[in-house]
């Protein structure tokens, strides 16, 4: 018996020592599912962190949810860290049936969370929990051609009322100030005065407010209808050839667009010459004290709640979203303030813009980001496309489509397990 105990003790010591050696030598391997643009950032983490090896797989953003559900079902090949290009994925991956995301509320220090721009992490807060960290901001601002506006003798609007007046002046002359048939711009107009177009109710889990009968919804809807009627809001999308041709030929002197529009649409697709493009703060309504601006995009990082390496997962997510050196090279405006400040130097030095304050405008506008830009288990913009945009194409109006949109959204909310007020 004594010899058995001695043998067990020696065996245990050898096993323990072996395990210790293995832990010290073996790097932790994390499986990462990324989209294409984030590959270089993950690669940089891999190269700069000796203890962690990343096994990065490119997954089509639209396929992410289905692939994770399959992996969860099979209990194999589940990624430790994912990049979510759609803010809705956070809510869709934290349901009872697809319970994937790790709660980061206590994992990411509050001081670090506070370094994000106001409402920057709104899409990551689901039912009071922080389930992801935001990579980039994409709020709507005003983009305009300085020379064209001067030649037209028109002031740059600061309010939606002035925007409508500008449309009344320029629409009949063949000028266009944006699109009325693209879901996100339309969405941004509709919520600009605080319309309750599926807004989460604070303090109540899975509860949303849907009320499109208020003046806060009707007023922007009437503005869009008026501008469609006078031709200043186009009935083709901003990426369609007809709109691109208008923009190329100087017929779009000003438009409301997300922060990435200057660099990735106006410069390469609309091909505005250098020295013309200027950014201005988001518009507000006369009765608002400050603007309320919606967003169009902005990805997030999340981790698997049952990962074998939670500390490394949190470190990777945190590094991706907040490492200043990494985010300085990011393609779009970082949501993390210190990173954004470093990132902005490039924009300030870019002679393409007519004014060096584009970055300052983008950052100042971030303060007005809509707190309702959150993650939902259904896609509101799809409902807008289905009800409002289709209605417009058959001669209807935005205002006239709001009751049908409300009914559609209530149905979607119920189907997806939300209580609505």
């Amino acid at each position, binding site marked *: 018996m004594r010899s058995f105990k001695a043998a067990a003790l020696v065996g245990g010591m050898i096993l323990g020592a072996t395990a210790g050696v293995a832990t010290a030598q073996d790097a932790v391997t994390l499986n990462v599912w990324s989209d294409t*643009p984030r590959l270089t950032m993950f690669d940089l983490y891999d190269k700069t962190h000796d203890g962690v090896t990343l096994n990065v797989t490119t997954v089509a953003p639209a396929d992410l949810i289905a692939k994770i559900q399959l992996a969860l079902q*099979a209990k194999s090949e589940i990624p430790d860290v994912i990049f979510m290009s759609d803010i809705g994925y956070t809510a869709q991956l934290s349901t009872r049936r697809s319970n994937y995301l790790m709660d980061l509320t206590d994992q990411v220090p509050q001081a670090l969370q506070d370094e994000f721009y106001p409402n920057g992490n709104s899409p990551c807060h689901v039912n009071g929990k922080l389930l992801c960290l935001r990579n980039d901001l994409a709020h709507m601002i005003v983009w305009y051609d300085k020379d064209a506006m001067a030649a037209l003798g028109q002031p740059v609007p600061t309010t939606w009322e002035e925007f409508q007046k500008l449309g009344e002046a320029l629409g009949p002359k063949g000028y266009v100030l944006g699109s009325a048939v693209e879901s996100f711009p339309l969405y941004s107009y509709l919520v600009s005065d605080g319309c309750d177009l599926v807004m989460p109710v604070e303090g109540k889990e899975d509860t949303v407010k849907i009320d499109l009968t208020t003046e806060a919804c009707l007023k922007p809807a009437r503005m869009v209808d008026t501008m469609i009627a006078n031709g200043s809001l186009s009935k083709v999308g901003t990426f369609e050839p007809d709109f691109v041709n208008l923009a190329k030929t100087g017929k779009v002197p000003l438009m409301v667009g997300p922060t990435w529009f200057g660099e990735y649409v106006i410069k390469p697709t609309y091909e505005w010459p250098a020295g013309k493009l200027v950014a201005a703060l988001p518009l507000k309504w006369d009765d608002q004290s400050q603007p309320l601006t919606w967003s169009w995009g902005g990805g997030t990082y999340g981790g698997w709640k049952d990962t074998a390496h939670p500390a490394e997962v949190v470190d990777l997510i945190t590094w991706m979203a907040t490492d200043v050196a990494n985010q300085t090279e990011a393609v779009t405006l970082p949501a993390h303030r210190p990173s954004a400040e470093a990132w902005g130097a490039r924009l300030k030095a870019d002679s393409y813009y007519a004014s060096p304050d584009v970055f300052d405008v983008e950052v100042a506008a971030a303060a007005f980001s809509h707190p309702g830009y959150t993650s939902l288990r259904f896609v509101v913009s799809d409902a807008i496309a289905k009800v409002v945009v289709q209605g417009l194409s058959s001669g209807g109006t935005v205002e006239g489509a709001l009751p049908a949109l409300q009914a559609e959204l209530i149905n979607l909310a119920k189907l997806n397990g939300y209580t609505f007020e």
Partner: protein
Amino acid sequence: MSTRTAPMRLNLGRFVVYATLAFAVCFYGIPLLWLFVAGTRSEASLLSDPPFALGTWEAFTRTWNNLTSYNNFQIVSWATNSLIYSIGGVLLSLAASIPGGYALALSEFPGRKLILLLTLIAMITPSTAVVLPIFLEMNLLGLSNTYAGMILASGFFPFGVYLTYVYFSTSLPKGVMDSARVDGCNRFQLFTRIALPLARPIIALVAFFSFLAIWSNYFLAFVLLSDDKLYNLPVGLTALVSGSGALSNLPSNDVPIKKPEVVLAAILVVLPVLLIFMAAQRFVRSGMLSGAEKG
């Protein structure tokens, strides 16, 4: 009088036939023509120039370089994977379909009708309905994310069994088989020495359809593969195009995959099938017509 009106009727008939054919060629051919023309154009040209404007060699080479140099020529490894899955799957489906169809056509054994019925049911069942069970099965066997798993799953081709069954039931003269039997052929020799040499058109046809199905199969590869090094062309290109935002109006990145690269990627997926069809069309046509005339 009647000799004068007959050519009129004939001409009108011909006109209707040719008009219908011309409409069909335009309706189905124009999108394909556009695809090949658009592959030579730049992003700006795609948005501004007329639909069938020809691009430039410079634009085409730039697009080609953008597409092929992405992530260390990953598209080449996706194409290689597609080829491996297709060849492996075709061989497997032929190995199962030809003897299977032959046995069902020329042998009487208990359960034959049931197997035929099951083949028909498997043929009309949408592939999406069986993908999840296949995924779980492969996962259980440890074959998900492997070449063997993809080839094994791709080899399931009940349509090939049915085609072969129809071919052997209708095109193989009974007399030939009987003569071979009298000359001393056993069952295996009957199949290898008589049936197989006569079955070249149907082998080509099954191989063609099987290749087509596997080469363009998105869903199976999407479900079974989560390692992008093992992706086939459809899944890899979808990941690339979707990730770059080239078509989703979220182009906020520096990935050089834009609309022209998407068009070229589509051509890359279509082209091998087109070339194989052109090379094998004699076999494919004779295989399709085999059994049309009995006796």
